[in-house]
Every structure is written in C-alpha cells, then in structure tokens.
C-alpha cells in the first residue's frame, strides 16, 4: 500500500487522554460515530416500544396495559390508553424514529465513522464541531424524552406538528402545553446539531480526500453521505427558523401561524392573521427531503455492499451517483404533494404531482442497477447481503404505492388512510432500517474487531423480513377499505370488520419486535465474545478495509493511503482474490 504525506495527513488534535476525552467528549470521529449509533439504538428501542403500545391498543382497545398508568396517570388512568394519549404515543414514535433513528444512524452514525476513513482522512475537518453536533443531538433527544414526564404529557400533534393546534398552547388539548413546547425546542436543537454535522461532512469530503481519491474514485457510501449532507444543509436550515417561529407563537404571543378569530376549547385565541398553511409549507419543504436524508445513506450502503458479495462491479456507478444527485435536486420540488388535501389550487397540485412522478425515474434506475449488479452473480448470501436484498425488496414495495399517492385525485381518497402508513413505512422506515442492519453486519468487524454471528444474523433477517411484510402489506388493504389513520380505536363503526386484520398486524408487530432481541443479543455478545475479525473479512476494496480492525486513532497509523483504484474493482480477471483494493499499488483492473 502506498502512503502519502499530504496536508490531510496532519492530525487536528492529539490522542485523547483520560476517560472523559476518550469516551464521552471525544473529538475522534469514530467514537462520535459510535455515540450516534448508540443513541439511535436507545431511540429505536423507545420508538418500537411506543409502536407496540399503539398496536396493542388498536387491536384490543379496552385492554389495560400494566404499568402504563405510572408513566401517564392522565393518559392511561387504568392502563387503558385515551385517544389523546394515543396521539401522543404516535407523535413521539414518529418523531423519535424519523429524527433520532433514521437520521442519526445511517447518516450521522455510519457517516461519521466511515466517511473520513473512506476518503483517507484522519478525522473530520472540524472535530470540535463534530463533537458539538453529537452532544447537541443528544440534548435534543433528552429534551424530547423529558416531555413524557411533564404534567400533561408529550405533544400530540403528530411529527408534522400542524398549526394552529401545535401553536396555540394547552387549549388545544393535553400535551399541547409544555409537551409541545419541548417538542419544538427539541427539533430546533436537533436542527443545529445536524447543520454542524452536514457542514463537517461536506468540508471533509471536499478538502480532506487523500492523494488519488478523486471524486470518481469515491466509494458510493461516501457519495451518498455527501449528497445527504447537502440535502440536510438546506432542509434543516429551513426547519430551524420554522421551529423558532412556532416557539414564538407559543411562548411570545406572535401570530405567524395562528389565524384570527380562532376558537379552541370555547376560548377565542388572542392571535390574528397567521397562516397555518405557512407552517405546512415550511415543514414539508424540510419534510420531504428528510425522506431522502433517511433513505439515501441506505442507497450508498447497499451500493457499497452488494458488489462485495456479488463479486461483481456495481452496474453503472456513475449513473447511480447521477440518480442520487437527481433525487436530491428533485426532493426540493415535491413538498406540496403532502398538502394536496390542505387547500391547494388544483394547478399547484399538478405542479407538485409531476416532479413527484419524475422522481420515481432515478429511484427506479437505481433499483435496476442493484438488480443488474446481482444478475448472473454468484451471490454470497451473508447477512449483510441478505439485508441489502431486503432493502431492495421493501424499497420497491413501498415505492410502487408512491405512484398512486403522487396523483392528487387518488391521494384525495387515500391520504388519510392506512395506505399512506404502509407506503411511508415500507419506502422510508423499513428500507432505511434494512440499510442500517446491512451496514451494521457489514461494518461491525471493522468497528469492533470482532465478527457477528452469521446464524443469528440470518434468523434475524428472515424473521424481520417476513415480519415487516406481515405488518405493512395488509395496511394497503386497510387503506383501500377506507380505514382512517390516526384514530385510536375502531370499535363501533363501519371499520369493525377490519379489527381481525388489525389484530393480525399487532401480533406480527409484537413478534417482529421480539425478533429484534436476536439482533440485540448478537450485537452485545459479538462485541465482547465474537471471533476476532481480520482486517478485511469480506474481501472488500474501500479504504476502511486497508487498515486494522478496529482502526487506530489516526485511522492509518500515521501513513495516509495513496489511492490508485476505484472502489469497484471486483471480479478482476486473473487476480487471486478477484479484487483490487483502492490503496493497492498493484495493476489496475484489466477488462
């Protein structure tokens, strides 16, 4: 392996001394990456527990849930969830999952750990900002969780916090007092953390690439994190002022989002002239790109991992980067499709509908590239490979329903139903989770120097894969049958015949959630007792596999690599190991 003495080789800070600097307030991108992943793990456990509570209540609305009364004496007095508390659980589930899991893990977590190594740098461009980014995010999480313990409970206006109910205060119901204020504060703080992170990702990618690491040679995961940072930089820059305005409406008496003459809970609200639609525009200008902030790192992870196990180069690598760039650009032109029912000029609806349909083109091309990559390959069915295939499967399943929802006339019927719940859980949540699982199984040996258990990994995959289809596929039928979402129970109306299907979904959700214990056990046990991992257990090409497992403090032992190859050198004719690493000085691929 060649080494370079470049400006990037000069480390920004000395190795940490002492426990706090080493493990808590660390400047090392690898520690910060693991901190993000640990935070996401805690968040996903809470988020999943909340979904269990909701699902149990939907299936058996009068069933008391032991211990719940202690968490919320008002929301679940006898352990039975009130409709208002159901909305709080829904709001917190979505907020925790979208912000602190789907953004924190695949983007901030894996990105922090691997982006600098994959470009051959020793750390992020601004390590102090990086540390601040994590701890700001952590504070945001604590602020959000603290709302569980305030007197009237957490916010209940959904993760979208639609005004005016999110803006008027406690007149709008339990949870709309301090709980909603804490929600807005938490998201504002979260935005600051993500802006610090995006700034670091972009500067590191542009300025700290090692010698030879041209843009064309950058790994696809790095491309994905870079593009995601650009999206985040713009999206969170809009959500932050929106949250500030929302907070001012709540605590300072302004009227940005609250109209005049609004009577809530028999009280005339002391505001005038605000526009609730303004909040929706600002929120969804962030909200739709947020979908891609969650999913594009999964694109990068799958595009990096699939060729490793297919032992074939990725099909159309430049096309893939082009697709991700196109998706990033188009993501800012489609926000209005979330607002077809919010009172929109039909011509505006058409303007948002067309780019929404167009954005399926790069997404479809990317999917075809993955399928083309594995076509004819002797695929190694390892756990990370399985999760990549699962990613493609659920992404296609969720993407197909997007075609229907993109059309205003069809969306009018489906928008408030479980069809939408099925759509976004498949295409955004489950797909992103499969990307996270694929990344975890793939990079765990590098991060901890130990292998995860493959048998447990495969059990985890199959149970999860079958489970998510059992949970979310029937929701399409619920939606088509007119089953509205956000309702806490369906006992006394036309939806009663659908209760058995709800019970099936609940049982599937409980079992799929329980299957995650296999992952948790594997994760913890392998961290301490897994077999020692070699430096390159998967015979992969990118720079992280050129260094030790786990990497040293400065990533390359004081010798930054020189890159002579692209990340796609698999199936090289005549090569004993059929691949050429990026930092290899040996001959390039001959085709």
């Amino acid at each position: 392996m060649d080494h370079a003495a470049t400006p990037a080789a000069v480390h920004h800070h000395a190795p940490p001394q002492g426990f706090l600097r080493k493990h808590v307030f660390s400047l090392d991108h690898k520690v910060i990456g693991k901190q993000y992943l640990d935070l996401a793990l805690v968040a996903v456990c809470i988020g999943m527990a909340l979904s269990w509570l909701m699902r149990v209540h939907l299936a058996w609305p009068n069933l008391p849930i032991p211990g719940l009364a202690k968490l919320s004496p008002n929301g679940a007095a006898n352990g039975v969830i009130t409709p208002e508390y159901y909305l709080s659980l829904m709001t917190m589930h979505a907020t925790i999952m979208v912000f602190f899991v789907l953004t924190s893990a695949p983007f901030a977590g894996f990105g922090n750990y691997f982006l600098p190594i994959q470009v051959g740098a020793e750390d992020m461009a601004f390590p102090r900002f990086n540390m601040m980014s994590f701890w700001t995010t952590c504070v945001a999480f604590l602020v959000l969780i603290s709302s569980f313990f305030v007197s009237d409970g957490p916010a209940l206006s959904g993760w979208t916090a639609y005004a005016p109910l999110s803006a008027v205060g406690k007149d709008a119901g339990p949870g709309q007092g301090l709980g909603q204020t804490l929600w807005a504060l938490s998201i504002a703080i979260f935005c600051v953390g993500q802006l610090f992170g995006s700034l670091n990702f972009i500067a590191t990618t542009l300025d700290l690439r090692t010698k030879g690491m041209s843009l064309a040679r950058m790994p696809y995961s790095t491309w994905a994190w870079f593009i995601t940072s650009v999206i985040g930089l713009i999206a969170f820059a809009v959500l932050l002022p929106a949250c500030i305005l929302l907070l001012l409406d709540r605590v300072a008496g302004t009227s940005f989002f609250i109209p005049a003459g609004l009577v809530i809970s028999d009280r005339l609200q002391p505001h005038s002239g605000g526009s609730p639609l303004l909040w929706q525009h600002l929120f969804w200008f962030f909200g739709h790109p947020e979908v891609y902030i969650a999913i594009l790192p999964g694109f990068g992870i799958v595009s990096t991992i699939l060729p490793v196990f297919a032992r074939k180069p990725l099909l159309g690598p430049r096309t893939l980067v082009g697709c991700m760039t196109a998706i990033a650009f188009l993501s800012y032109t489609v926000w209005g499709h979330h607002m077809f029912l919010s009172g929109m000029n039909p011509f505006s609806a058409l303007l948002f509908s067309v780019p929404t349909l167009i954005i399926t083109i790069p997404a479809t091309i990317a999917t075809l590239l993955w399928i083309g990559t594995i076509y004819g390959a002797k695929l190694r069915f390892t756990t990370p490979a399985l999760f990549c295939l699962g990613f493609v499967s659920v992404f296609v399943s969720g993407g197909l329903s997007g075609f229907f929802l993109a059309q205003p006339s069809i969306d009018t019927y489906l928008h408030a139903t479980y069809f939408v719940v099925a759509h976004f859980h498949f295409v955004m949540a489950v797909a992103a989770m499969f990307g996270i699982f694929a990344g975890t199984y793939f990079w765990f040996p590098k991060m901890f120097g130990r292998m995860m258990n493959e048998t447990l990994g495969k059990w985890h995959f199959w149970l999860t894969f079958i489970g998510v289809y059992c949970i979310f596929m029937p929701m399409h039928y619920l939606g088509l049958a007119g089953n509205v979402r956000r309702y806490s129970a369906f006992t006394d109306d036309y939806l009663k015949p659908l209760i058995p299907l709800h019970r099936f979904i609940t049982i599937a959700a409980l079992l799929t959630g329980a299957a995650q214990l296999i992952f948790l056990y594997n994760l913890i046990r392998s961290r301490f007792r897994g077999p020692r991992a070699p430096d390159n257990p998967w015979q992969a090409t990118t720079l992280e596999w050129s260094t030790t497992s786990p990497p040293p403090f400065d990533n390359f032992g004081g010798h930054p690599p020189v890159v002579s190859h692209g990340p796609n050198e698999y199936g090289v004719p005549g090569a004993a190991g059929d691949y050429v690493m990026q930092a290899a000085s040996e001959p390039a691929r001959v085709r």
Partner: protein
Amino acid sequence: MTTVASPPQSPPGAAPPRAQPPTATRGPEPRPAETGVWVAIATISMSFAALTSAMVVRASAAPDWQHFRLPPILYFNTLVLLASSFTLASARRRITTVPALDGLPRLYLTLGLGLLFVTGQVLAWRQLAAQGLFLATSPSSAFFYVFTALHGLHVLGGLGGLLYVLRRLRRAAGGPGPTTALGAATLYWHFMDVLWLYLLVILTIRV
C-alpha cells in the same frame, strides 16, 4: 494488514498493465476552514430565504400587517458594520505580512466596531419598544425582531471567530499569522455585511 490480490495475467508479449497514477484531487492547499465558511454561508442564506418567504406569505395572509418607520439608528449601524469590514480587510493585509502583530490594532478596531453594531441594534429595539412596538404587537414588528435578532446572533458568532483569530495571533508572537483562520473569519464577516444590507432592504420595503 490485508492488501491486494495478485496481479492479473497479461497476454504473452503484451506490456504489463500499470496502476492508474494517483491524481491530484485538491489544490495545493486545501482550506477546510474556508470551505466550512462557504457551506455555513449557504445554510445561513437558506435560513434567511425561508424567513423572507415566510414574511412575504404572512404579509399577504391577512390585513393586520402594520407598517412602521425603521429606527434611524439602523442606518448608522449599517455604516459601522461596513466600516468594520474595511478595517478587517486592512487588518488582514497587515497580518499576512511579517510581523503579523502589526495588524493587531485594526483587528481590535474591527472587534470594537462589531460590538458597537450589536449595541446599536439593541438600541434600535429599545427605540421600537418606546414606540409601543414589541415582538407580538404586529406581524411586521415580529419579523423585524426575528430578523435582527438572528442576524445579531450570527454577528456575535463572527465576533467569536475574530476573538479566536486574535488569540492565535497573539500566540504567534511576531511569527506568521493564522492566515487560514483569518481568511475564513474575514469571509464570514463580509457575509454578515451583505446579509445585513439584504435585510435592511427587505425590511425597508416590507416593514
């Protein structure tokens, strides 16, 4: 450490294939600090663009938009901020030469002008408050306070950056100055000027 598979076999008589030469990917001096400031400029611009669009929408949403005269001190503050950019540019020219400490007085002057600007903005708030125009009085006053407060916070951030440069400069003790950090701080400071001029124009038009 795992390295690489063995080289591919070449046909007999053919020249052996060579590794692609490493290509230069960056300029001779990558400046992450300046890149970071450009990225920060992009994101700050986006935030203020979002607020501007919010103001335009809100102004036309209801007939409660109340026009008022901007406090005259804002124009004085504008001159102070512009002057600070000139003093900073001059300080930078001096600091990039040796001895760098020659630029120190102009850097202090920039800091003083920056503080004067922030103080002036607070005085503008007090003048508005004396007229009975508070944050919640009208949407126009609300946007005025929001814009000026957020800009003021960013200026304070810039002052923090200049203090950092000042500390580095004093530590350099006559040697080469912290040119990269100074360049980044200067870029940011000039952007604060441009941003303020933009805000002044839209506030004049809308408020």
